[in-house]
C-alpha cells in the first residue's frame, strides 16, 4: 500500500492543475500563445517560416523547426542565471523532438520556424507547459500540423500515480517521487516525449502513461478552444 493516500493540494490523483490557454498574445509574432497550468506559465512566440541563419543549418529537403526554451530569471524562488544552460539546451532539444512529428514543413525548404518559449513562472512541469504553448503558437502561425501536441507530467509517489505534480509534490523528501513528463499526439496516441526522473517499475510506468492519456486529450481540447476563441 502506498503511504501517499491523499494529495496535499486537495486534487484527485487524475486531476491536473487548473489550465488557462490563450492564442495570439504577442502581436508582432507570426503566432503566439500563453499556457498556464497551476503556477507554471509559459509564453510561446513563433516567427517564420523565415530564412535560416546560420546558413549551414539549412536543410534543402525540408524546413527546420527550432525551439528555444528559456526560464526567466525571476520565474522561480532561486534566481535562474540568464542565458543558455545545459538544462535549457536539453529541454529545447526535447521540445523540438516532441513537436516535430506533427508539423509538416516540406513546403519550406531551407527555411526555419523559430519557436521561442519563455517561462515567466515555474512550479514543476515547465517543459510540458512549454510544449503545450508552443503547439498552440505553431497552429496560430498557420503551420500545417496534423494534430496538436499535448504534454503533462505524471508522478509516481510511493507507487501511487498522481497526474501533473506541482512543486511541493516534486520535492517530497520522505517518499520516493518519480517525475515522468509525457507528450502525446491525441488523435493517434503516439508518445512524442517520455522522460523520467526517479525510480519506478515497468508496470508503474505503463500505468502512468495510461492514466495521463485522458488528461492529455482534455488538454488538447483546451488548446483547440484557445485557438477558436481568437476568432470569435
Amino acid at each position, binding site marked *: 500500500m502506498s503511504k501517499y493516500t491523499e494529495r496535499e493540494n486537495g486534487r484527485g490523483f487524475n486531476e491536473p492543475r487548473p489550465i488557462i490557454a490563450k492564442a495570439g498574445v504577442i502581436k508582432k509574432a507570426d*503566432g503566439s500563445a500563453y499556457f498556464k497550468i497551476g503556477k507554471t506559465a509559459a509564453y510561446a512566440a513563433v516567427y517564420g517560416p*523565415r*530564412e535560416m541563419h546560420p546558413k549551414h543549418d539549412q536543410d534543402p529537403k525540408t524546413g527546420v523547426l527550432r525551439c528555444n526554451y528559456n526560464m526567466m530569471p525571476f520565474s522561480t524562488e532561486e534566481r535562474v542565471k540568464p542565458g543558455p544552460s545545459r538544462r535549457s539546451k536539453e529541454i529545447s532539444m526535447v521540445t523540438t523532438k516532441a513537436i516535430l512529428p506533427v508539423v509538416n514543413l516540406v513546403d519550406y525548404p531551407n527555411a526555419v520556424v523559430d519557436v521561442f518559449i519563455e517561462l515567466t513562472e515555474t512550479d514543476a512541469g515547465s517543459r510540458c507547459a512549454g510544449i503545450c504553448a508552443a503547439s498552440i503558437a505553431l497552429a496560430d502561425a498557420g503551420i*500545417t500540423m496534423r494534430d496538436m501536441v499535448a504534454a503533462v507530467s505524471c508522478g509516481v509517489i510511493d507507487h501511487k500515480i498522481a497526474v501533473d505534480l506541482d512543486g511541493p509534490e516534486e520535492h517530497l523528501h520522505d517518499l520516493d517521487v518519480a517525475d515522468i513528463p509525457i507528450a502525446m499526439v491525441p488523435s493517434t496516441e503516439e508518445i512524442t516525449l517520455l522522460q523520467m526522473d526517479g525510480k519506478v517499475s515497468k508496470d508503474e510506468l505503463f500505468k502512468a502513461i495510461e492514466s495521463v492519456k485522458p488528461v492529455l486529450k482534455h488538454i488538447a481540447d483546451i488548446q483547440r478552444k484557445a485557438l*477558436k476563441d481568437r476568432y470569435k
Partner: protein
Amino acid sequence: MTEGKLLVKEKDVVVPGEVLASGMSYLPGNGTYRLNDNIMANRLGLLVIDGKVLKSLPLAGRYLPRKYDVIIGKVIDILMSGWRLEINSPYSAVLPLKDASFAYIPKGADLTRYFELEDYAVVKITNVTSQNLVDVTCKGPGLHKIKGGRIIYVNTNKVPRIIGKKGSMVSMIKRATDCKVIVGQNGIAWISGEPEMEVITVNAIKMIEEHSHISGLTDKIKEYLEKATGRKIEFNAEPAEIGEEVRAEETVEADSNGSGHEY
C-alpha cells in the same frame, strides 16, 4: 459503407487535429486529411464544403510564392545582373536585368539608375523552383516601380477579401478616396493619394483585415468610407463570398498607366 456524418458547419474556424466528419462519404481537400474513418483538419482555417470535399482555407501563415502572382517587392540587394527583392515571404525574389525595364541596359551600367536599394516595385512572378527560388519580371501591364505613396503590410491570407469579388472591395475604396491602391498577393499594399485619404484607405484596409471572417463586411466598409470621406458612394459592390479566390491582376489592371516604361 457507413453513413458519413458532418461534425462542423461551413465557415466554422477549424483547428489542427479537429475531427470534421466521420464516415467515408466525405473527402479530404486542402488543409484536411483522412485518419482512418475521420476527416481531420491539419491547419488553422475556415471550413469550406465543396460538394463532398472538405477544405480549410488558411487564416494565418506566411506568403508562399506562386507563379503568375502579382506582388510588391522591396529591393534589398543589387546583384551582378539584377536585383534581389524582399517579398514578405521566407524566400526572396530575383529581378533579372532583362526583365527589369523596357529600356536597353548596357553592359556595366550603374544598376541603381533603374532600381535603387529600398525601392519598391510591382512585379509578377515568372518562375518558382522546387527549392522556392523566385524569379520576377517588371515588364508587363500594371508592373512598374513605385514612386511616392505609402506601403503597408497586411495578412497575406486576407488579400482576396481586401480585393473582393472581381476587385469590388478595393474599387469601392478607390472610388471613395480617389487613391491609387495596389494590393500584392504577398500582403504588401501600396496606397497613393491625398494624405488624409491615404489614412482613410489604410484604416479601411485594416478594418477588412480584422473583420475578414464576418459577413456583411462590404456594407460595414461602405458605411465607414461614407462617414470618413463625407461623400456618398453610389457604387454597389457585390458582397464577396468568404473563401473566394481572387487574384491580384484584376486590381492592378485598374490603375495601370500603360506599359510601365517610366525610366
